[in-house]
């Protein structure tokens, strides 16, 4: 898509979220038992967002990682508590399979979660798929407790299996619910290893986009506050201590945005440098968001040390996202390995 088409795609989503996913909504959904708002989800489905990356044949928009990433920048900015990322990854995992789940995902009628396992596991689970049977537990699976279907994505391919048990976890970032998912049932392979790898890349790019978007928004909020808040007879943003932090954070958040968008492009193009680009986005966006969130609290001062101020919601999201799909040290290591292979 051209930049103007992307803008036209993103704009109604941003408007919907401004209206239906304001801070008060986020707090309400956070405080709810499931962390999921079915009405909001239907409204997103109404814009086609739930089917963004679902094949057109299954009623989706059939778009790529580039468009997904841009939509998730907006979702991240609003701290959207909804299974959007999981659904997009599921759609990538099932692309071209004609699975009936795809149409239900596009329509927003069903919710999918994705458990990475085997060679694609970052979180210490022990799921094995062997002899058409899945056993073991996948850890920290986003949205699993509200999902109608849980895909198992391993180094060998994509599988569907009925989970034996889904145990919701008490999470630090209550805008993204996680669960441990135990398997002990037949597993049906629905896509190959290439689809699984692509699903992994889409997950990372989507998360990176969320982080970049959240960092941008939080920095804007912080800069606005620094313009308006006066101490010592001056806007605090006129003090170099605050101004220079803001400048440094702009570099972080713009770099994150560049990295996430470039990785999305490379995933769509299947470019040879793709693995490095995805790894770079994974750690650069995670680190940038953590730093922006941390420094934003410092720049606000006391007001951001309160529960009522939204800054800590961003910090929680930032800290959690930085551990969800492998940590930054892990991805820096992968980045260097990918560069070595290129060199």
């Amino acid at each position, binding site marked *: 898509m051209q930049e103007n088409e992307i803008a036209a795609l993103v704009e109604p989503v941003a408007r919907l979220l401004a209206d239906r996913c304001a801070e008060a909504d986020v707090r309400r959904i956070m405080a709810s038992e499931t962390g999921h708002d079915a009405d909001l989800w239907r409204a997103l489905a109404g814009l086609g967002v739930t089917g963004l990356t679902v094949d057109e044949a299954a009623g989706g928009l059939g778009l790529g990682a580039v468009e997904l990433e841009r939509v998730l920048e907006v979702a991240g900015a609003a701290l959207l508590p909804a299974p959007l990322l999981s659904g997009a990854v599921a759609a990538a995992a099932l692309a071209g399979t004609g699975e009936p789940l795809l149409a239900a995902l596009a329509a927003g009628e069903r919710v999918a979660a994705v458990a990475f396992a085997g060679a694609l596991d970052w979180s210490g689970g022990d799921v094995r798929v062997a002899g058409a049977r899945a056993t073991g537990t996948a850890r920290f699976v986003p949205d699993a407790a509200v999902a109608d279907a849980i895909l198992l994505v391993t180094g060998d391919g994509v599988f569907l299996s009925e989970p034996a048990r889904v145990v919701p976890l008490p999470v*630090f970032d209550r805008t993204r619910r996680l669960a441990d998912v135990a398997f002990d049932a037949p597993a049906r392979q629905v896509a190959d290893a290439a689809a699984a790898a692509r699903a992994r890349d889409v997950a990372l790019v989507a998360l990176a986009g969320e982080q970049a978007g959240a960092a941008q928004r939080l920095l804007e909020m912080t800069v606005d506050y620094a313009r308006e808040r*006066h101490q010592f*007879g001056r806007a605090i943003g006129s003090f170099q*201590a605050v101004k220079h932090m803001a400048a440094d954070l702009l570099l972080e958040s713009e770099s994150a945005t560049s990295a996430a968008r470039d990785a999305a492009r490379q995933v769509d193009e299947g470019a040879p440098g793709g693995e490095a680009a995805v790894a770079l986005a994974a750690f650069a966006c995670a680190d940038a968001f953590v730093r922006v969130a941390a420094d934003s*609290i*410092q720049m606000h001062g006391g007001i951001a040390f309160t529960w009522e101020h939204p800054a*800590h919601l961003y910090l929680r999201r930032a*800290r959690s996202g930085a551990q969800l799909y492998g*940590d930054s040290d892990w991805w820096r290591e992968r980045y260097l390995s990918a560069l070595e292979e290129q060199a």
Partner: protein
Amino acid sequence: MTDEQLTAEVEAWLAAHWTGAEPHHESFGRDPRSVWLAEVRDAGWAVPRWPAAWHGRDLSDAQGRLVEAAFARAGAPGAGQDRTNLWANTALAHATGEFRRTIVAQLLAGEVGMCLLYSEPGAGSDLAAVRTRADKVEGGWRVTGQKVWTSGAAVADYGMLIARTDWDVPKHRGISFFFLPMKQDGVTVRPLHQITGEAHFNEVFIDGAFVPEDHLLGPLNGGWSVLQTALAYERSVMGDRARGPRSGAGGAKGDLALLALAREAGRLDEPVVRQQVAQAIAWRALNALNTRRAKAELAQGSSSAIMSLGKLAMSRILHEEARVRTMLLRAGSLLEGPEHPRAEDANFLALNAYFTSIGGGTDQIQRNIIGERVLGLPKEPEVDRTVPFREVKAG
């Protein structure tokens, strides 16, 4: 009196009065701790360096420490409040008349609860920008405004309050310092939830509350310098107030907690982990060495520049330790709650580190103080120093 004689006298008094605990049995209707503290006060041990007319014994600082040491050996509380009791020191220095006599005695016996009414939503780093107003009425002042970051407001009898009493002079010159009676209509205390979800602090809404004439401390419109004295006490203890892990399940205590945690996580053999754990432990160790050196320099009578660095150092230590804990736990840090104490610790510490890096003056304000007061660098131009407060942009 020789040091030996003094120590002997204190020990004899303690042997005669201190039973190893506060006197529960003889204190129907009164707080047993207050009963004990009153005894200590009346014996002159509460404030041994103060004049005899003010519950003291006119001792030197060094002799005062002997008194404190004897109490510490016995495990008895209450001695040496001339060094540690913010409230009593402030009242002695700045209150007047009968109120001074009453309140000092009560404060030394812990008979009244206190809180601080300094910060406001619009006056955090810049305390001189307070907008809470105290308007003169018959027999005293009527106070209206809002205060934040108050500890213990719900149980306090008095709040040490700064409020504006003149709006037509530059901001530092129109502030007065009061003991505000808290238990009256017009004072509403609400819990203030912190970033961690806890509520250690309050917001205090003041709507026409009354302060009697003699509850003014220091001169009218001279509150800024009273406040400076009071803040000096606070700063000197700030470095020690940083809290440890919430769970209490930290394994090894103190400096080596990170080492223990890394071992427990099975990651102590990873070179990248080892570098980070070592550096975090080192920062804490260096701060301890600085503190020890500062104390030695002070003991030798030379003033120490190092003392002012502790809060800034601690801020870096706490943020970095939280980061290293998170790194060690990896996805394990996604959790919280009592069933996941390691994650609870890492996340709590990451949030609570701002208590040190923001509370009691942000790191940025602290760097100003170090730059200006320790290194002698010039202040920034102060745009509001000479402007009537009415015309200052604030909030």
